[in-house]
């Protein structure tokens, strides 16, 4: 058994270098086919057992539901708005306890915020901004299913234009559902100059693993946005989670990238982007763009936005132009 993903590795090239050992065990209340859990599980294989997940209210709060926990490491549920501040308290406490000889260095742990997009993009943004600003040495894992999922799929500021949610229904005032564009959290985070920012997708496990391996060598804020296809909220069959994760990347709607010390690199640039419709079609949250009549204007707007984004990316190096 390798545990965790061979720490001596700087990067992996094949799936078979991913750790066999699991650090988040089954038996939880999370929906079957959850893309966010898939991403977190892969991340945990790099982080290993000496980890405390500091959680903000969201779907994943149900991972540790008394009297059961799936984690081999530790867990602390805080509030919806302040998980990053919780990470601050834990990290600072461990540092000072070690400095004062009250905790052996071997018992130190990685401090990892686990939060959904509702917390990350909305109510918890201020606390996260503060933690990055203070140079806190911590990880932040956002499972981004583009809505308040735990409360039944209401719009968050991560909800993309054109998606229907429980609070942005299609109606006489909006044919698109959500009229706002998704906040660019990657850029908001990057503007804070953290040590590392990356997007990851559960369907790209080697890319995901390598980003966590790279971040492990860095001190400071290490921030991850994980694309988290959500069968329950996006209204598709759970077996298709990996399909939508893949299509999001191949259509260019979800860019795989990282920024080290602020310098952006796209870690995967599809040679030719598929039309966004391939990603949108089949997801119930976008059905109104196709039925009963096609909403060409909205579809074009989504495609244009993606095209504009990639026009700014160098097609071979993946660097921002």
């Amino acid at each position, binding site marked *: 058994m390798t545990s965790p993903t061979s720490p001596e590795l700087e990067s992996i090239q094949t*799936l*078979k270098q*991913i750790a*066999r050992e*699991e650090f*988040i*065990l*089954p*038996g*939880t*209340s*999370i*929906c*079957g*086919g*959850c*893309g966010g*859990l*898939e991403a977190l*599980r*892969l991340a945990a294989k790099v982080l290993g057992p000496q980890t405390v997940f500091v959680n903000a209210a969201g779907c994943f*709060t*149900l991972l*540790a*539901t*008394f*009297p*059961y*926990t*799936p*984690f*081999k*490491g530790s*867990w602390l549920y805080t509030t919806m708005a302040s998980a990053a501040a919780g990470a601050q308290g834990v990290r600072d406490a461990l540092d000072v306890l070690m400095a004062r000889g009250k905790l052996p260095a071997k018992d130190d742990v990685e401090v990892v915020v686990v939060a959904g997009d509702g917390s990350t993009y909305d109510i918890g943004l201020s606390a996260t901004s503060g933690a990055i600003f203070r140079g806190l040495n911590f990880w932040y894992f956002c499972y981004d299913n583009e809505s308040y999922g735990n409360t039944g799929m209401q719009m968050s500021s991560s909800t993309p234009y054109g998606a229907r949610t429980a609070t942005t229904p299609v109606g006489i005032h909006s044919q698109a559902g959500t009229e706002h564009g998704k906040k660019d959290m990657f850029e908001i985070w990057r503007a804070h100059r953290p040590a590392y920012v990356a997007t990851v997708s*559960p369907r790209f*496990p080697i890319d995901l693993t390598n980003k966590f391996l790279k971040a492990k060598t860095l001190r400071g804020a290490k921030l991850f946005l994980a694309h988290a296809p959500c*069968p*329950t909220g996006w209204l598709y*069959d*759970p*077996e*298709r*989670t*990996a*399909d939508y994760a893949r299509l999001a990347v191949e259509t260019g709607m979800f860019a795989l990238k990282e920024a080290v010390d602020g310098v952006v690199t796209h870690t995967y640039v599809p040679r030719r982007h598929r039309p966004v419709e391939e990603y949108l079609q089949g997801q119930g949250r976008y059905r109104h763009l196709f039925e009963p009549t096609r909403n060409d204007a909205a579809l074009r707007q989504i495609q244009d936005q993606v095209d504009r984004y990639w026009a700014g990316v160098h097609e071979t190096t993946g660097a921002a132009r």
Partner: protein
Amino acid sequence: MLRIRFHGRGGQGMKTASRILGSAGFHAGWIVQDSPVYGAERRGAPMSAFTRLAREPIRERGVIASPDLVVIADETLLADLAAQPLLGCDTRSTVLMNTRKQSAELSPLGAVSREAIFAADFTALALETTQSLASLSVALGVAAARLLGLSLSEALAGVTDELSPHLSAERQAKNVALAQVAYARAEGWPIIQERQTTDSPTLVTLVEVAFDPPTVAAPSIYAISNSPERKTGNWRQFRPVLHAELCTRCWICFVRCPEAAIALDAHDYPVVDYDQCKGCLLCVHECPTHAFTAEQEVR
């Protein structure tokens, strides 16, 4: 008062079934109350819903402790500690069960005798008529309405009220057809009567909650990674079955499984933990050599 408790798994439509029955009763002139209760769990996890029908204003709330009728959407719930569908049933309770078994194959369920258990394969009825498992709500809601003596037109009115307005006309029609079939299926069964007497409450013993030390009294968990004790395998409606001869040991299913319910054996063949697998079928869908097939659970 008639008290009906529905037990299902998230996604099986038992909240809708309880509302179909509630609406049907309302159309029939009863005073009605219906409500679902679900924990934090999602698709596949046990949930329940309650419908009360009465001739007088209903002065009850929340859970139904002593049901006249229990509707069970999924036989696996019987053994699920999180569901306990038979809780509070007595000799006057009736059970309506969705099962592939014939009534004759069924044994008594706690205090409920075989004569008070009515069973049919509503899943098959739903699949035949609407090609959708989501229609189980219609089938069971209507069958329950029939068991309570509501007429077909009242039951259909309940179905029409509760069907999503987003459904196409074709799907609406198929659901109405299913309602008629399900009603007919239940027509041979006796009609449940209201209880004439009210049981006196049974006195319970109240106990002191004494001080416990903080090692005990905080909601923390010291038994690390104990979640597998809570089996989620019974969330499945379909199970992934490996055909090893087709497997190339590529690790894709192992890597993709969100649940960590697939391990690799010493030779890199995947081993599905059926105690835990929730049946999302990502592995079936993702396997490049189609070495996994999905097979409907027979329970």
